């Protein structure tokens, strides 16, 4: 499966798709980018007259690139499962935020698989800004299943 096709399989769309380009993906992890457009709606309110990307959105971006893209890849590689209509749910996240991310910044997310067992995928994720500085890091876990055969 090509990386482009994988992005098309993501169960998200604008305004809640936070994956732009998938750079690397294999059994052990994923790497991808996203650029936060200044037109994203939440900047109007976070904060008043001082737009900064909310931590929860950074976490979501890490989860979409690091966990969901990887999860779809792993399910697909498994062969037994179809990745149409996948069901996903984040089950836990512990994140540390080190630097702010402003509108129009491009970030790169890397993830490393900790385990994928019994439909639960847990990853260590890191997000870097365009200067290569670490923006946030943590661990995210979720349940991921293909919809068709449960």
């Amino acid at each position, binding site marked *: 499966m090509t990386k482009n096709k994988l992005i098309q399989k993501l169960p998200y769309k604008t305004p809640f798709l936070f994956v732009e380009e998938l750079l690397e993906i294999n059994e052990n992890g994923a790497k991808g980018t996203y650029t936060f457009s200044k037109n994203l709606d939440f900047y109007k309110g976070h904060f008043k007259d001082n737009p900064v990307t909310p931590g929860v959105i950074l976490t979501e971006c890490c989860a979409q690139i690091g966990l969901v893209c990887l999860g779809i890849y792993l399910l697909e590689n498994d062969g037994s499962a179809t990745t149409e209509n996948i069901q996903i749910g984040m089950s836990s996240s512990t994140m540390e935020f080190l630097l702010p991310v402003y509108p129009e910044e491009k970030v790169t997310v890397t993830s490393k698989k900790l385990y994928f*067992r*019994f439909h*639960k995928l847990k990853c260590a994720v890191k997000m870097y800004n365009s200067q290569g500085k670490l923006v946030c890091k943590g661990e995210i*876990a979720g*349940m991921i299943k293909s919809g068709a055969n449960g």
Partner: protein
Amino acid sequence: MTKDERYKKLKDIIKIYLPEDVSVANISMESHFINELNINSANLVDIILDVEDEFDIMLENEDMERMQTVQDALQIIEGKLD
């Protein structure tokens, strides 16, 4: 390891993942992990991974599907230890 010891070890693992409204005293042999102890499927996976480490066994997807109650878990553990 006796049956009681295995039960105690299992309870020690389960209690880490109990939601706030369920206490250790609620755990019995018949307790259903999801319906009675209110453990969600993600935490049930954590329990299984901890069980594997604690008892030095390997569990399969079928084991997870059979593991509905505390008793089921103990039976599966016993089967693997034999």
